[in-house]
């Protein structure tokens, strides 16, 4: 195992050296860093050209310049010496500084989208695999491929047009027209029809229910002017809580496990009491406090499950813990919504909350909730754009993998010994279906930092992609090499991690040294 890792690491270093050399040569050949000075007609043009030539060592042939750069980069390897020298950009800013900032922005932009894409994509894949060749399967497949094939700059511009500009105009006067209610309800009916199973009659009833449900909600939202001052309130939280309790129990323990169900429901009850109890505390929230509260919440849930006991304590604890977490999340969401009117009326926001640019409103001043909403309104659109496009990959992979697993002998065995469908799917199939995805996920996390060049461009995020493309435009070699170095190392490391994780998850795969 150790020899294997060492061998892989040595190979990685060699690949990195070779690739960085090629990238350096390509960058050097991509343009003339002096172009703007050549067209200038200031009298000291020659001095300026000389200065920039000295700054970027342009008088040295590119292959030799590469080794100068490599020498600086190699000093980054000395730990704790802070001697890292990746050069500086044409504007004289150190590349290490540029990289640190750009990475932060990119991680902010891409993390949410990637996590959501993984969660939603895998869920969709599993569900469609279980309902193979149903209307739902075809529907999801169609949508996944549709989004997959859309160019992201176009999706992003459309999202801005309707999701930001149009939606903000709507928010100024949030009256939902009758046409909008009817159309949305019809869409809802169609989705319910696809999701429901059974005879045509049953599915039509489901569609009718879906129509009525959506219409009622929209009507209610319209009457109460919900969009101006959104919120759940204790009633909705209670209903949602009970729903969460049933859903989580169904997935983790099965509804037949009464102790688990009761633990989850008791957690919901405690959550409702806590909803009123923590409101004054939440007014003073800080990120650290939210983290502590989240931990406490989960612990309370687990404790409830523990004391409810039963023949399988673990199941109750799982169900109650998860329910507690989601309940806490709902309360958190509600608290954010309570701050929405304050945010929206803030004179920096000027009543147009959904932003099209950047990661935060400049000079916005507010408490935890206001700043949280600000981040949300800025990340909403880019996250949707990125997520829609990467959904397809995850859902198709997990669908294929799940289908394969469901036809395995051990699934038949599990069924044959009389296990319930829930246990077969959740315990025997689902876990094994995730193994091939580990590679994909590990690799995607490595690719996170590489950024989403076009998305960053359209949403004016100054992340890694922007740093790269901007530097390429100015033929500014050092930032390009900095970006390449980071993304290259991450790609290689996570490739290795993916291989190792795979062998840990699947005992059939053994790493050969």
């Amino acid at each position, binding site marked *: 195992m150790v020899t294997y890792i060492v061998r892989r690491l040595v190979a990685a270093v060699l690949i990195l050296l070779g690739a960085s050399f090629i990238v350096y040569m390509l960058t050097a050949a991509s*343009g*003339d860093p*002096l*172009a703007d000075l*050549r*067209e200038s*007609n*200031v*009298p*000291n043009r*020659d*001095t*300026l050209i*000389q*200065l*920039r030539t000295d700054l970027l060592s342009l008088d040295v042939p590119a292959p030799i310049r590469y080794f100068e750069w490599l020498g600086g980069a190699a000093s980054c390897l000395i730990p704790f010496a802070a001697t890292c020298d990746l050069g500086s950009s044409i*504007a*004289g*800013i150190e590349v290490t*500084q540029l990289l640190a*900032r*750009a990475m932060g*922005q990119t991680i902010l932009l891409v993390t949410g989208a990637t996590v959501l894409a993984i969660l939603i994509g895998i869920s969709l894949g599993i569900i469609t695999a279980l309902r193979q060749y149903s209307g739902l399967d075809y529907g999801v497949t169609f949508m996944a491929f549709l989004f997959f094939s859309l160019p992201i700059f176009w999706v992003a*511009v459309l999202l*801005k047009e309707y999701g*930001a*500009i149009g939606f*903000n105009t709507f928010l100024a006067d949030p009256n939902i027209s009758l046409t909008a209610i009817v159309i949305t309800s019809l869409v809802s009916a169609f989705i319910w029809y696809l999701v429901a199973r059974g005879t045509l009659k049953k599915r039509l009833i489901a569609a009718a229910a879906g129509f009525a449900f959506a219409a009622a909600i929209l009507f209610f939202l319209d009457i109460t002017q919900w969009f101006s001052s959104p919120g759940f309130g204790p009633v909705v939280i209670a209903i949602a809580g009970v729903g969460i309790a049933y859903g989580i129990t169904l997935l983790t323990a099965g509804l037949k496990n009464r102790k688990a169900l009761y633990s989850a429901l008791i957690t919901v009850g405690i959550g409702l009491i806590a909803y009123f109890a923590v409101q004054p*505390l939440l*007014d003073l*929230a*800080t990120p650290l*406090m939210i983290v*502590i509260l989240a931990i*406490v919440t989960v612990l309370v849930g687990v404790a409830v499950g523990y004391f409810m006991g039963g023949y399988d304590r673990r199941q109750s604890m799982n169900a109650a813990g998860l329910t507690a977490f989601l309940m806490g999340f709902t309360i958190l969401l509600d608290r954010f919504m309570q701050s929405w009117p304050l945010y929206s*009326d*803030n*004179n*920096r926001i*000027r009543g*147009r909350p*959904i*932003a*099209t*640019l*950047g*990661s*935060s409103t*400049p*000079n916005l*001043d507010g*408490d*935890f*909730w*206001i700043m949280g909403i600000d981040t949300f309104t800025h990340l909403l659109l880019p996250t949707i754009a990125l997520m829609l496009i990467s959904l397809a990959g995850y859902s198709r992979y997990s669908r294929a993998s799940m289908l394969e697993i469901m036809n395995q002998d051990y699934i038949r065995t599990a069924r044959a010994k009389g296990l319930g469908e829930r246990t077969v799917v959740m315990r025997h199939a689902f876990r094994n279906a995730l193994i091939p995805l580990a590679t994909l996920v590990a690799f995607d996390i490595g690719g996170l930092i590489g950024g989403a060049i076009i998305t960053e*461009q*359209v949403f*004016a995020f100054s992340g890694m992609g*922007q740093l790269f493309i*901007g530097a390429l435009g100015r033929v500014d070699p050092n930032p390009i090499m900095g970006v390449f170095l980071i993304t290259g190392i991450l790609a290689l490391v996570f490739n290795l991690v993916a291989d190792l994780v795979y062998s840990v998850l699947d005992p059939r795969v053994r790493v050969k040294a």
Partner: protein
Amino acid sequence: MRFGRTSKAVGVAAIAALALSACASTDSGEGNSDPDASGDTGASSGGVVSVAEVNPFTSFNSDSATGNVDINGKVSYLTKSGFNYINDQLEVVPREEFGSYEVVSEDPLTVTYTVNEGVAWSDGEPIDGGDLLFSWAVSSGYFDDADAEAETGTTYFAAASTAGLDLSLLPELGEDGRSITIEYTEPYADWEIAYGVIDTPAHVVATQAGLADEDALIELIQNTPEGDPEDPQERPELQSVADVWNTAFDTTTLPDDPAMYLSSGPYIVDAMVPDQSMTLVKNEDYNWGPETQLDEITIRYIGDATAQVQGLQNGDVDVIQPQASADTLASLEALDGVNIFEGDELSFDHLDLNYSGVFEDENVRKAFMMTIPRDAIVESTIRQLDPEADHRDSHIFDVGTPGYEAATPVNGSEMYDEVDIEGATELLDGATPEVRIMYSVDNPNRVDAYTLIAESAEQAGFVVVDGGLPGNEWGAALGTGTYDAVIFGWVSTGVGVTGVPQLYGCGSASNFSGFCDEEAQAAMDELIVTTDEAEQQELQTIVDTRLFDTGYGLPLFQSIGINAASDSIEGVGFSPTQEGIWWNFWEWTVAE
């Protein structure tokens, strides 16, 4: 000791409560009760404006070679005052509230600059003799003893431009301590824009460089001998001052030390988010210039033109300066409540012919010029942005200036208004010269121009060879004689005349085509020592006419810029200067 279950639970709860209260925010929900705490002063009086810029801010020293990026210059324009500024008509306007300047002697040209009393940096330190002298020291290259060929000596202050002041002697400071007298060794036509107070306060540079104070810096400048490339010297003290000036002001975050971003103008930087935005607020002490209306200006860096337009539409920004394109213009025109500002920028594309090789004969040059379809070129490039746009008819004057209006009817450009294939064929008299045209294949406008020119010239009998080069090579090929004609662009400074001999003087560095004409040279020699504007214009017209008469080539078109602003912002206007839309920022107001 044993605890019961209840007491354990109480204990845990108590500890949890303690931990939570410890990490609670201390401002007790102030943000809640007072949502617009930060900005309500803005809303109640002058208002707040958010402006999109393409490039991110990189330096508080826009006079240095590395800091000389458009955005840095614009921030400097907002936060620093000077003796004059350039308006949208490309006229130099003195700022009398800041200081005054007068020519005390024409021969030798001597100018005295005096800063008014009470004009100060935002830390209270007055702008005085030290600043004036240091500004000169930096912008004159006086101490430089670098010799590029021998690779000896040092360029101390890496100034973006040393135009004019490189011809000046070590100036004298006035007795009032806030005036300076600069003497030029030769008359210099553009003296009015040659000297100004630079971005960086002398007292800050002095202390940063380890000198005792501003006076020590004055002494250092006055006592250090002029640099001599023949005899380079080590000057460590000056070097440390230069190092501070060259690099210490480069930053993308707000420096911890307020001295690094002092203001002497209407606004002062209040906050910076690297690569995203910058906020300027009023400089409370400022009263030496036009009174500004806006309380706060936010600059946001948005590279993408579509993103700028949609940002304007969504109210994220109020003023935008996107890269001009037909698409951008169309999407702006589709918006309500937006004012669009279009105008000529200071760069222009032109076709130059070599005065050698196949074009040695003036008639061949003229024949080639007759075939250039300038209307078709304009049609395929800038007319999409502005239906009224026309080709440029002067090598020297920018479209729309008084000089341009006066020169174009008489400079001989009329001859080439229309394509004249017949005339060209006649001039060629049966010859079929082979012409290699060089241009950048990465610039679509120039590719279009080349295609149209080649097509038209071949009708007259020219054999056109495509000499297009990639974007990284064409610049280096200029002036190497590997082509006969070249299509490229110049960026003019808009003001001043010293650029003329640099481009068209016999043997000067940027004269790539080998143009050398006695009459034009005489006019240029006189031009750079003439300070009277009317005379300058006359001399420039002579050069312009000679360029057309001798078949230098043809100017093609001047680029067009597009800016736009929400109609809630009043007083905004286009300007071709480097400051662009900002040129009259003190006139901007937010309509209620």
